[in-house]
């Protein structure tokens, strides 16, 4: 593999579109596949919220029905 005149290289058959690039002092470049958000991950904050809501739901407790009419009119 060689860089072209503009010091670019091609990655053939790359499995991911985005990479996190680290330039090391010895001239090596380290490319790691970049994952912005794991699709199935739920944040710990949401999970905490889910835990409490489910606990109350199992006891038959939830808020009063919400009225969306005022929001939808606008």
């Amino acid at each position, binding site marked *: 593999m060689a860089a072209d005149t503009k010091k670019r290289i091609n990655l053939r058959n790359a499995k991911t579109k985005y990479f996190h690039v680290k330039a090391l002092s010895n001239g090596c470049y380290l490319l790691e596949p970049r994952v912005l958000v794991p699709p199935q991950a739920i944040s710990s904050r949401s999970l905490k919220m889910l835990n409490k809501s*489910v606990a109350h739901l199992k006891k038959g407790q939830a808020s009063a*029905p919400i009225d969306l009419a005022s929001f939808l009119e606008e």
Partner: protein
Amino acid sequence: MAFNIRMGLPEMEAFWNDLSTRRQQGKLDKEGEKFLKKLVKALAFLGQNPRHPGLASHEIDDLTRKYGVKIFQSYLENNTPAAGRLFWAYGPDKGDITVLAIEPHPEDQKRGSYQRIKLSRLPVPGSGSQKRQQKR
């Protein structure tokens, strides 16, 4: 069949009350307005038809197994990677849907998000490709 939309206690109710109060007082910022608009639209669809195609509702088996109640997930946006998500369940009464949690859209351009980017695992030393390089 139309459903009553309820909020889970206590945090979801507080979150909704805070959002709607700030809206009424005109204290919502631009991002908040945008989020509320998406949320209201999704909740309206959820109330009319939980299987509305725009919501892409589906059961999350892992959460169902964990809580012993069927937990569903719906999307707040379409054609958006890492879109905001709603977690909900039927109940407590017939004809009710309770919104249990909201996973907002991750902030991909703000507040040090670049530092929080998750990277894949590094290749294990001595794995196939490195051995091949050593042979050369």
